[in-house]
């Protein structure tokens, strides 16, 4: 009974909160550029409008074109539900749930890429190719980060792994994970959600042919993914264990906000990289995580 | 009498060198025949008391090696109307030197193997080794089928020469062996030389190289 209530509550949270983040990011960008940007709740309006709209479907598309986004959204939501929320802890925690989380995100990627390939449009093919290719490097970083956390905490379940030790390891891990966050959520410097020059994009270009409710689901899923990574990052480097409940919540929220602002700042201060430099950056992220792992190993040994 | 025996062996050694040096087929055949006769007579000298069996072997050997085989070969040679010169793989002088060196080596080598007292004085072992060596040199260095047959005969002479060591102890083995060897050798060599010459009308073994990888 209690569990089901908690389940509903979490679902609700994960349903409502995420679209806030892109709004904040855009707000920050606008503020840096000295513009009045769109309202923070812009994405909510967009989602509502899209959900009411009809759909234009490519002749070539199979039912997978609709099912893909839905499954992807479910996968991300499932990953989100596995993630412990600071003091709340996680809904369901078991050995190796972290692997499940990582692979659920992979499943989501599979579905979006599949849906993108449905239409046979060369642009979407390009986007899907880039998505799955860069994911290879991102995956390495994520696994390494997971290893670092598990070595550090001597455990392989998220709930216990999220009790990190501060220090050089934490900093390295934060840097690495932040880069991965940018890459996985297709933000500058990997991707540029703002432009609509297809050749330069990864994620945006994959959804070119989507419209109406499926597009809404995709956008919501993306924002949920962003929040997920933000929470993961914060909990991975900020030790919340000792804090009281409200403090912990506050720190968590603050951390997420900080990350989001950070993303906004990066987007407005950096230019998008040329694609051939993307692997370089991702490799750097991987190395950062690897160093974090080494530090964790030695720290434990010492 | 061992001196007489050694004399004959010495002659056969000389004949080896002669065979190596002979540049024409007929002379080679003659040399081989002569050696056959010389060796054939040996058992008679080795006998202390006369025995029919040994005498028979000796005479047969002498006749076959001295008469039958040479005739056969000459016949084949004529039938095959081949040029009488045998152009060697190894020149005559080198093969001569080789043969001589081999003979000397043989004489020296024999010191390491133990011999029965009654054979101490004899040159049988070096003689046979020398003949075998000569046979091999001829087989390897001469290109005419007939010359190779001669080489084979001299090789056999070497074996025979060694067999004389045992002729007292195990006459049956030696004689049966030698006789069978001769008869069959004659028989087969006759056939083959004849057939080859009919098939190729030349006895140059360098033409017999159709079969190879």
């Amino acid at each position, binding site marked *: 009974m209690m569990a089901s209530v908690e389940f509903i509550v979490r679902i609700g949270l994960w349903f409502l909160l995420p679209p806030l983040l892109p709004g904040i990011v855009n707000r920050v960008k606008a503020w840096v550029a000295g513009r009045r940007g769109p309202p923070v709740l812009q994405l909510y309006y967009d989602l509502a409008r899209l959900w009411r709209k009809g759909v234009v479907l490519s002749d070539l598309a199979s039912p997978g074109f609709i099912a893909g986004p839905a499954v992807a959204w479910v996968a991300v939501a499932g990953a989100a539900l596995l993630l412990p929320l600071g003091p709340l802890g996680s809904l369901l925690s078991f050995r190796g749930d972290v692997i499940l989380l990582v692979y659920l995100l992979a499943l989501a990627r599979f579905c979006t890429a599949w849906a993108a390939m449905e239409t046979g449009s060369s642009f979407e093919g390009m986007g899907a190719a880039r998505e799955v290719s860069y994911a290879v490097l991102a995956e390495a970083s994520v696994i390494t980060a997971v290893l670092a956390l598990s070595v550090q905490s001597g455990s392989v379940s998220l709930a216990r792994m999220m009790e990190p030790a501060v220090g050089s390891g934490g900093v390295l891990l934060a840097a690495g994970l932040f880069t991965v966050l940018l890459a996985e959520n297709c933000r500058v410097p990997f991707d540029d959600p703002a432009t609509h020059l297809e050749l330069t994009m990864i994620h945006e270009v994959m959804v070119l042919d989507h419209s109406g409710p499926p597009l809404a689901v995709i956008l919501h899923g993306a924002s949920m993914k962003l929040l997920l990574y933000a929470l993961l990052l914060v909990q991975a480097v900020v030790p919340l264990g000792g804090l009281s409940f409200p403090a912990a919540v506050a720190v968590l929220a603050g951390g997420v906000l900080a990350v989001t602002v950070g993303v906004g700042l990066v987007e407005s201060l950096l230019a998008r990289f040329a694609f051939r430099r993307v692997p370089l950056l991702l490799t750097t992220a991987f190395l950062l995580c690897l160093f974090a792992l080494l530090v964790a190993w030695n720290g434990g040994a010492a | 009498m061992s001196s007489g025996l050694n004399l004959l062996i010495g002659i056969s050694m000389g004949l080896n060198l002669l065979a190596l040096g002979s540049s024409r087929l007929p002379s080679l055949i003659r040399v081989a025949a002569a050696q056959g006769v010389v060796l054939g007579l040996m058992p008679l000298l080795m006998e202390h008391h006369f025995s029919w069996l040994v005498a028979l072997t000796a005479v047969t050997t002498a006749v076959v090696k001295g008469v039958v085989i040479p005739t056969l070969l000459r016949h084949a040679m004529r039938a095959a109307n081949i040029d009488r010169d045998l152009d060697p793989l190894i020149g005559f002088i080198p093969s001569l030197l080789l043969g001589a060196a081999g003979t000397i080596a043989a004489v020296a080598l024999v010191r390491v193997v133990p011999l029965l007292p009654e054979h101490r004085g004899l040159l049988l072992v070096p003689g046979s080794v020398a003949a075998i060596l000569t046979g091999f040199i001829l087989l390897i260095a001469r290109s005419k089928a007939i010359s190779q047959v001669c080489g084979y005969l001299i090789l056999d002479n070497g*074996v025979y020469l060694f067999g004389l060591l*045992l002729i007292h102890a195990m006459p049956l083995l*030696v004689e049966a062996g030698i006789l069978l060897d001769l008869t069959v050798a004659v028989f087969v*060599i006759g056939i083959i030389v004849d057939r080859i010459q009919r098939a*190729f009308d030349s006895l140059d073994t360098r033409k*017999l190289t159709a*079969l190879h990888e």
Partner: protein
Amino acid sequence: MTQYFLIGIPLAAALAAAAWPDNRTRPWLLPATGIVHTALSLWLLVSPPQVPAGAWLGFDPLARAILPAVSLLFLACSLYGVSYLRTRSERSNRVFVAGLLAAFGLMSLAHQARHLGLLWIATEAVTFASVPLIHFNGTPRAFEATWKYLLVGGTGIALSLLGSFCLGYASLQGGGAGDLTFAALSAQGVALSRPWVLIAWVLLLAGYGTKMGLAPMHTWKPDAYGEAPGMVGAMLAGGVTTVAFAAVLRVRAVIDAAGAGREAGITLMVIGLFSMVVAALFLLGTRDFKRMLAYSSVEHMGILSFAASIGGAGVWAALFHIWNNSLTKGSLFLSAGNIRRAAGARTVDEVGGMSVLTPRSAALFVTGMFAVTACPPFGPFFSELLVLKAALSGGHGMAAAVFLGSLLFPFFGLTRLVFAIVDGRPRTAARTAGKLFPETAGVVVPPLILLGLSVWLGLATPSVLHTAWSDAVAQLTPPVK
């Protein structure tokens, strides 16, 4: 008494064949002799006679362990021969049949010879008796092969005679009374003069090795096997070689007794492995499927020598492998003969697609190929495993590695060549082969029988053979003092 029939019957049949007037019915002498001979030798296998120690001749354990295999092989070849010679009715088979029977009789003699000299004489006689078989085809190539066979073989014979003399001299020095039976020689034991024994061993190994076809004295083999009819190749590869190998075994027993067993073992192992390696290299490249069989035979002679060099269990495995080699190699030669006659050519450049032209022979050929390359359930698989096991138990790790390596490369060569011949589409040259060479039962069943025997031998080796081989090993290994 029976053992003398084994020798006498074929020789008598040979005389009969020489006298027999009719070219068409003469071949029937072959199966007749074969059946009687096989029956006799199998009977002797089951109930071996007592052999007096000093006998020059006798069906002793070693003969019992090998000779029946030769009889079986001859039986199959003789059955094959009837149909084969019918297809060659254009030429007289008088000399051929007589020679084959004589050679067979002399083989039986050589296998039963317990006397150094007698053994040598028999072996030489076999060599010369098989001369007419090799140039049966009467082509210039056949004559050339015969010529080489004669001179190389003759040289080997001269060497083995010299070796026999040396061994005799060694026994003289040991105070022997000139008795050259192997029993007597072994009895002399260490009394034999060591230098002469060693010299004798080298000469005899080289001499009889030439007859076995061990590298580098194997040069006559591809020519002879390539030019002779298939059934002759089978008899040479499965019969004559075993004679020479048995001779080596008998001599080695004496050398062992004389206390030079270590040297003998090592030389035997080295020459065996060397033969295997050389054969492997030849097999990788050869393009003529009858010469291929010759090289494969060289390889198996190497296996036999290697096995024999290990001693004890190795010798047992070697005896087992003799049977398997004779049977499988025989079937391979017979089916190869069919393909050769049907295709009218022998190299992969001219022959192809035989699975279409002569399906049965092609299937037999492929099966036989897998059999000789030690694929189960055929006998060689088991015997070669036993050889390997014996080698490893004997602590010859490196040698075993070489052994395995030189089993691998022949497999590559054989499979490539055989599939090239069997698969694909027929060459234009051999289009009409089906009519040119009908696959009658007479030419298909004998190889099939041989393969069946090989399977039977491998899966369910009769216990009588087990005991026969064990007795032979006991006869060969000197009693430890």
